[in-house]
């Protein structure tokens, strides 16, 4: 059972700023993500999406502001926030020495899950993502789509409350994309909070309940999907708020 201080707000970001040297990647951004929400975090390349994710997961330090996960500070109480988050990163960053099953079992172990339980959970996930036959091989033997699925398995191995997905379907074929969409929708229905970044507007439009758009390190739009779209397509809204903005500047 996950421990939470605030069970309504999954993610709370207040006045968050992040500098890389003199470059300000995040400019005083603030927003909340409610528990059980399917939140789409959109923005062009370099807008600050991955930086925000890295701050949330503790992979990046931040310059000022506060970032809470279910009421716990991600820096001061990182041992409480990390079990609540599962990250499906953009890159294939797997241990080359381990088989798929070993990798998942060790990963579960880091979260305090006993080995028998970890093995059971790993096999369930490998089965769910059609990777069971490959469980004894090392990740280099997998195709691109399989590696994407493995990223998802690893993010879910400790059954986190929040699943953060950084472009999970980039480079996937249609079949895999639909498989991932169905699984994410199912997870969200079960009550998981999902924080998704994507460049596919139809993906965000189909899956997300709330949308945030970030541009040049600033939140330019946030709210329920219908209110953000205002009878337009999400793509039109996105282009208006990002590319179009740049043109007039």
């Amino acid at each position, binding site marked *: 059972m996950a421990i939470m201080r605030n069970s309504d707000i999954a993610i709370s970001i207040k006045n968050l700023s992040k500098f890389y040297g003199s470059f300000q990647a995040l400019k005083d951004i603030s927003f909340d993500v409610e528990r059980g929400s399917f939140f789409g975090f959109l923005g062009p390349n370099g807008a600050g999406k991955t930086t925000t994710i*890295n701050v949330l997961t503790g992979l990046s330090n931040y310059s000022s502001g506060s970032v809470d996960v279910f009421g716990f500070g991600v820096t001061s109480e990182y041992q409480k926030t990390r079990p609540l988050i599962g990250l499906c990163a953009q890159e294939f960053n797997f241990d080359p020495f381990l088989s798929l099953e070993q990798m998942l079992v060790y990963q579960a172990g880091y979260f305090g899950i006993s080995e028998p339980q970890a093995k059971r959970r790993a096999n369930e996930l490998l089965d769910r993502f059609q990777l069971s036959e490959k469980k004894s091989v090392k990740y280099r033997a997998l195709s691109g789509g399989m590696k994407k699925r493995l990223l998802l398995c690893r993010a879910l191995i400790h059954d986190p409350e929040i699943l953060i997905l950084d472009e999970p379907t980039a480079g996937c074929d249609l079949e895999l994309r639909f498989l991932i969409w169905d699984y994410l929708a199912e997870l969200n229905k079960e009550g998981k909070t999902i924080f998704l970044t994507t460049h596919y507007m139809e993906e965000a439009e189909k899956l997300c309940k709330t949308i945030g758009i970030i541009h040049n390190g600033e939140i330019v739009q946030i709210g329920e999907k219908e209110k953000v779209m205002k009878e337009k397509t999400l793509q039109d809204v996105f282009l208006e708020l990002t590319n179009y903005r740049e043109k007039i500047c």
Partner: protein
Amino acid sequence: MLISNPTGILALIKREVMRFLSVATQTLFPPMISSILFICIFGLALGKRIDLSESGITYIAFIIPGLMTMNAITSSYENASSSLFISRWHNHIQEVLLSPLSYFEMVLGILVGSLVRSLLVVSGVLAISLTFNPMPIAHPFLMIYFMVIIPIIFSCAGMLAALWAEDFNMLTMWNTYLIMPLTFLGGVFHPIHLIPAQFRFFTKLNPMYYLVNGMRHSVIGVSDTQVMHSIAVSLALAIVMFLTTVYLFRIGYKLRT
């Protein structure tokens, strides 16, 4: 509490051990083969010309603790530095950084993995050495102390190098230009009285000198230093290196952007 996630640490240790066992031909056996060569060439061939009869020991017995120390240093350093650096290089360090392991626990996990490798290597070197030169161990508990404390120091040194290094060239630099020369100059193969008198002062500034001689005292009961000095230097080094490594993990030095 210092350890809040014992299952997590155990998983990290298992992964570390699994990593070096999966490449045992590179990690476990070469030090044993090179030790046999050192014993044959220095101990059996050249050693006959070195007279240590004043101390009542043979030259081959003299170099055995030196070889144990040298292998404890290199195996623990190489294990920790390569493990952490490769995980930074492939970025699968994120698997650990995203977990609820505390920074203390992360360092401890990597350290214990290197310690296990070092203990396997040094025990192997000792076993091989004893077949060439059977002898009783003078102070077995003290030997265990040095077999543990030396890898603690150099596992941390390996982690520090792995954090600092940006490429493989930088990673090997510390070992090539600092650790190996200091180890050899620290008395692995020679007693201090064989060094010209004007250089002995510099030898005494070398921390490896205390580690080699501490191990030598524990194994053969003879050394060039007071054993308490060796214990004090090794303990102080281990504490400083460990705390520095935990601190760098905590601030995310080259681990977090």
